[in-house]
């Protein structure tokens, strides 16, 4: 069991690394799904089958589909990386990576001062369910509020987008901006190479 745990963990880490370094958005998403699957396995190993299932269904299923949908809608799968070319220059990633490494070192140093044995106790879906509608019932209600807010927000923002898409005027604006090369965009891109 421990071997499975560590192998899948390694898979997850590698897949995540690939996600963030991959140029192609679709590829990146696929790597992300791989990573999520690996994490699901981890959950399973840790004795949380219910959560593992949810990870697969909701995360890898629902959320990632949303991503893919948007990526395809924006038609950016192939050339998304172009703007991110300079990501691979050392100066672009050196700083953030260094920062991440420092954080990693610090957390590792702090966490490693104590032992963290896995209990390996399996917690069934039933237990989870009971907890959800027992002590956490308000939490569930609140989560519903949270989802309502997300729903409303997405609705408000998204719906207007569609209506505007239909307006000829809006398309004109977009095209003209694309043609002239919006100064703000180009300026931003120019500066960003120094920013990191």
């Amino acid at each position, binding site marked *: 069991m421990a071997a499975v745990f560590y192998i899948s963990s390694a898979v997850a880490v590698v897949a995540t690394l690939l996600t963030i370094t991959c140029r192609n958005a679709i590829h990146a998403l696929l790597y992300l799904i791989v990573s999520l699957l690996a994490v699901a396995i981890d959950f399973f190993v840790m004795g949380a089958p219910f959560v593992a299932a949810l990870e697969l269904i909701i995360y890898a299923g629902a959320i990632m589909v949303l991503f893919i949908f948007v990526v395809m809608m924006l038609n950016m799968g192939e050339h998304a990386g172009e703007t991110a070319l300079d990501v691979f220059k050392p100066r672009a990633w050196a*700083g*953030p990576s260094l*920062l*991440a490494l*420092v*954080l990693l070192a*610090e*957390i590792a*140093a*702090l966490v490693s*001062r104590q032992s963290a044995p896995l209990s390996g106790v399996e917690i069934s879906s039933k237990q989870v369910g009971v907890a959800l509608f027992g002590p956490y019932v308000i939490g569930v209600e609140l989560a519903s509020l949270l989802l309502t807010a997300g729903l409303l927000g997405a609705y408000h923002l998204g719906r207007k987008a569609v209506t505007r898409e239909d307006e000829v005027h809006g398309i004109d604006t977009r095209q003209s901006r694309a043609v002239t090369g919006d100064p703000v965009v180009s300026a931003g891109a120019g500066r*960003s190479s120094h*920013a*990191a």
Partner: protein
Amino acid sequence: MLNLLWLAPALPLTSAVLLAIFGSRWPRKLVSLAGVGSIGLAAVASMLVAWSFLTAPPPGNAFVLPLWTWMAAGSFRPEFGLYLDPVSLLMLLVVTFVGFLIHLYSTEYMRGDEGYARFFAYMNLFVASMLLLVLGSNLLVLYMGWEGVGLCSYLLIGFWYRDAANVRAANKAFLVTRIGDTAFAIGLFLLFTQLGTLDIQQLMQRAQSQWPAGSTLAIAAAALLLGGAVGKSAQLPLQTWLPDAMAGPTPTSALIHAATMVTAGVYLIARTHVLFTLAPEVQLVVAVIGAATLLMAACSALVQRDIKRVLAYSTISQIGYMFLALGLGAWSAAMFHFMTHAFFKALLFLAAGAVIQSLHHEQDMFRMGGLRRELPVAFWSFVIGGSALAGLPLLTAGFFSKDLILWQSWAGLNGSIWFWLCGMLGALLTSLYTYRLVFLVFYGTAKSHVSERPGLAIKLPLAVLCVLSIFAGYLDTPPHFGGVPRLSNFLNSTLPALEEVHVGPVITEVTTALTASLVFLAGFSLAYLLYYRRRVEQPAESALARFWAAGWGFDTLYSWIFVRPFVWLAEVNRRDIVDSLYTALASLTQASNGLLQRTETGHVRWYASGLAIGSAVFLGLVWWMR
């Protein structure tokens, strides 16, 4: 009758206030009436007081008229009171009487001036302040008068304010005397702190009883008071303001810068003579200052072109004599010379004023000449006044008073032959420059046209002063010439009597008088030879003459030592160096604002880094502390 004393300062003061407020709207006649009348009434009041004082001397030969407590804070409660004793009575009479004459003179002299009312307001204010100075029972009141006359001097020197030079001269006079005043003020602090009072009589008593002779405190106090006196009386080293002060109208010069105010220093020292007696070192310094000043100023007087400047240097020189007398302990001699000097120097100035006015405000002696016939009154005034100044033996007041000082300079308590020699040399020079002036102005060929002749208001004061210049000397004649020391006796109740210590076979009164007479003759003859026979048409141009004419270079020296550094400092620091400290702080803040603003890039990734950096820092903190 003595209670009328307060009228003496109050009348001129009232008149001054009225003139200041309404003067510009009053008719000229009324202004004259108020201006001259108030002084006249003050003179009458003083004479009544004097008569009463002389006929029925108050107990202790001193009279105190308390008015009110000026300010009371703890033990500090100076009285605002008037104090009359022989010394102040003498001053009172001289000031009011000479003041009255000069005011009278001014009605004509200032006739055409637009600031007629203003002039009289200032003059009245001056007389009031001067009387306060003279009569103050308290050093603080005296100080108030002291400053008041300084103010009036300033106002009158700058009377013709349109000329920037006059204003500069006024500023100079005020500032230089202010330096002395400050020393005086510090002296007051010291006296009060040590002796607990500022009342002059109490002060003298306590000083006498509490301080041993030669004690440091007495020396310090006397030195500080001397500082004040030196400033006011234009003695070394603060003499530089007086020649410039001649920028004021001539009556002003006569009243303030010859007869009264400049002698305030003498008065102050005489008043506080106890302190100086307790501090013999300082007293010696007084004498040395007097001797040095009288010689120096006499040399300068010798080479001046401006008629008023000659008289100004002469004044300095004569006050030098008074200081010499004070330094020698010949207190009453100083006061005697003060009195006669007031008469003849006022006479000389007024006569000079008459000449100047007749010649369209021409003051250069080398452009005058032959005025003897044109202006007989002025001529005779000059002859009489000048003779008194030079000390024409036996006939003039100046001879007696100066003779007394010369005699004391050798025979007196602190006398020495050196002082005597200085005095004699000074007398020679005095005689020389006096007659130089007379010959230059009144003899020779006429060079300018006399436009107007003096009227009655000018002639009358001249005449009165001529009489006084001749006869005032008989108030106090030495033993060999009548021997009526009335004045000395009169003053003896206040001032210590003259002592004759160094009397020897050679050193006698008679020899001194003879020598003085000879010296007078020598000076006169020299002047006659130089300026009458060999008519010198141009002033001497030698380096020494220029040096003397410029007042021994003191102006330049002070300019380099004090004025320029001060002005330089002021100008360099005009923008206030301290402020730049705060400006720097402000710039630092602005700079850090600029620096911090660059962190707000608008890039979301950088903002997220902020989160990460913050976490890293705080995690590091945990790591470090645990």
